[in-house]
């Protein structure tokens, strides 16, 4: 399931999948020379069935069970929003906490397989305050991976993008290798000149990290419970390898809200 900010996780129900209702239409012969309405409308049963497909999305239900359970009476639904009018002499715009990134090529399996994650998710997984207390596991089956691939998610990018994403990829690999014994990491990405100059000599010395100058093509799982298969090209040749966890290097973007503010204030984001 594709992750989007602020979304409820939707459990697949008994009625999934259910066909979307098709609008009945008059035939092409009936339309010729006539201005009769083409779409004839749903019959009642179809309309009701279609309406019943609605998931009625809602996050907090407002059931107030938390309020009933809270002994120190900290939960208070009557706390109002506050509207503040503020004046400043100087503004500094930073990216804030929302980590936006450019869409990832759908061939790379992000959103399809639970064990294809972003570098941002991996960063949280590695963090001591993360949900697994820093334990590296595959969200697909909860097992500790043996082979991890860190792959470039955006082949089009400038030198800066490649440099910072490669450094992050190497750093995450260093951490993962430190945490897990008997593991190997492959980093597959086009390598930019500035990385080669500044970091390659040190990065290549890291044991069990294999830096492959190539381009990831696709990620797939052909059989349930089998590892993921990464297809990539290197020196004009297509190669395939199995991995237990795939980490995609993302291309950061400034979130919509921050960039709107930056435009409004005519000021760059730090």
């Amino acid at each position: 399931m594709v992750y989007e900010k602020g979304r409820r996780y939707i459990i697949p129900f008994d009625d999934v999948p259910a066909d979307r209702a098709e609008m009945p239409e008059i035939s092409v012969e009936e339309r010729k020379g006539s201005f009769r309405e083409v779409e004839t409308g749903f019959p009642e049963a179809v309309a009701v069935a279609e309406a019943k497909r609605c998931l009625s999305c809602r996050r907090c239900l407002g059931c107030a069970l938390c309020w009933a359970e809270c002994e120190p009476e900290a939960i208070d639904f009557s706390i109002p929003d506050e509207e503040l009018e503020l004046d400043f002499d100087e503004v500094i715009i930073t990216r804030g906490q929302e980590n936006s990134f450019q869409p990832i090529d759908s061939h790379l399996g992000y959103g399809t397989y639970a064990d294809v994650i972003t570098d941002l998710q991996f960063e949280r997984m590695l963090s001591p305050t993360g949900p697994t207390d820093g334990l590296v596991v595959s969200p697909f089956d909860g097992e500790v991976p043996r082979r991890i691939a860190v792959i470039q998610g955006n082949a089009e990018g400038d030198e800066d993008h490649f440099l910072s994403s490669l450094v992050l990829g190497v750093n995450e690999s260093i951490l993962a290798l430190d945490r897990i014994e008997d593991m190997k990491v492959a980093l597959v990405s086009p390598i930019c000149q500035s990385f080669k100059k500044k970091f390659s000599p040190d990065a290549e010395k890291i044991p069990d990290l294999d830096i492959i100058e190539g381009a990831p093509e696709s990620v797939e799982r052909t059989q349930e419970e089998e590892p993921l298969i990464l297809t990539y090209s290197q020196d004009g040749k297509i190669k395939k390898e199995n991995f237990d966890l795939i980490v995609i290097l993302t291309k950061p973007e400034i979130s919509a809200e921050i960039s709107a503010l930056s435009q409004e204030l005519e000021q760059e984001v730090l």
Partner: protein
Amino acid sequence: MCTGRLDPAIVAGAFRQGLDGLLTVGCYFGDCHYITGNVQAKAKIDITRKVLKHAGLNEERLAFRQCSSGEASVFVDLVSQFDEKIHSLGPLGGAGDRVKAPEIFKKLETAEAALTSEKIRWVIGKRTPFLETGNIYGEIFTEHEFNRAVEMIIVEETQVQEILGGLKEGARSVKDLAKRLDIPPERVFRYITALQRKNLVALQGVNGRSPVFQLTA
């Protein structure tokens, strides 16, 4: 006793102990001495039926019908019809049910645990206010929306109870739990991390490549 006092957990418990069918007969809507007792009864039975259906029970084993205390013959008809129905379904966990014995009894144990849980009991009780006066924010639900919300909670809560039940037998890995309970492992992983967050489950250790989880004391 008013049908509105019926406890869903007791209903599930009765089936767990081998009951083949349960017919609840309440007063007609509008005739309730306590005003809405029968409406609540129907709502409770509906939700209980959903939970039991989820556990693999044929939903026709639990019914809600209405008649007044003066209608002896109607009552007799209701009972004989229901009796006939249950006879045709056969014993619990047989051909009439999706899940067979003895697995169904284990599933019913989970259903009982889910129906005992605070979450489902609380939400069942919210039906009337949600549909008529609104939730804590004053938002009124349609019936469809309320049913959707309840369904979602039933599915999730049942699976959570299954996982907790599995861990009660001993520490297990995500993969192991997923296989035993027939829940997709990626979802078990999410349930487990969520339970960790709630301090209900903790990592016991890593066995080879498998992190193993246990219930917290």
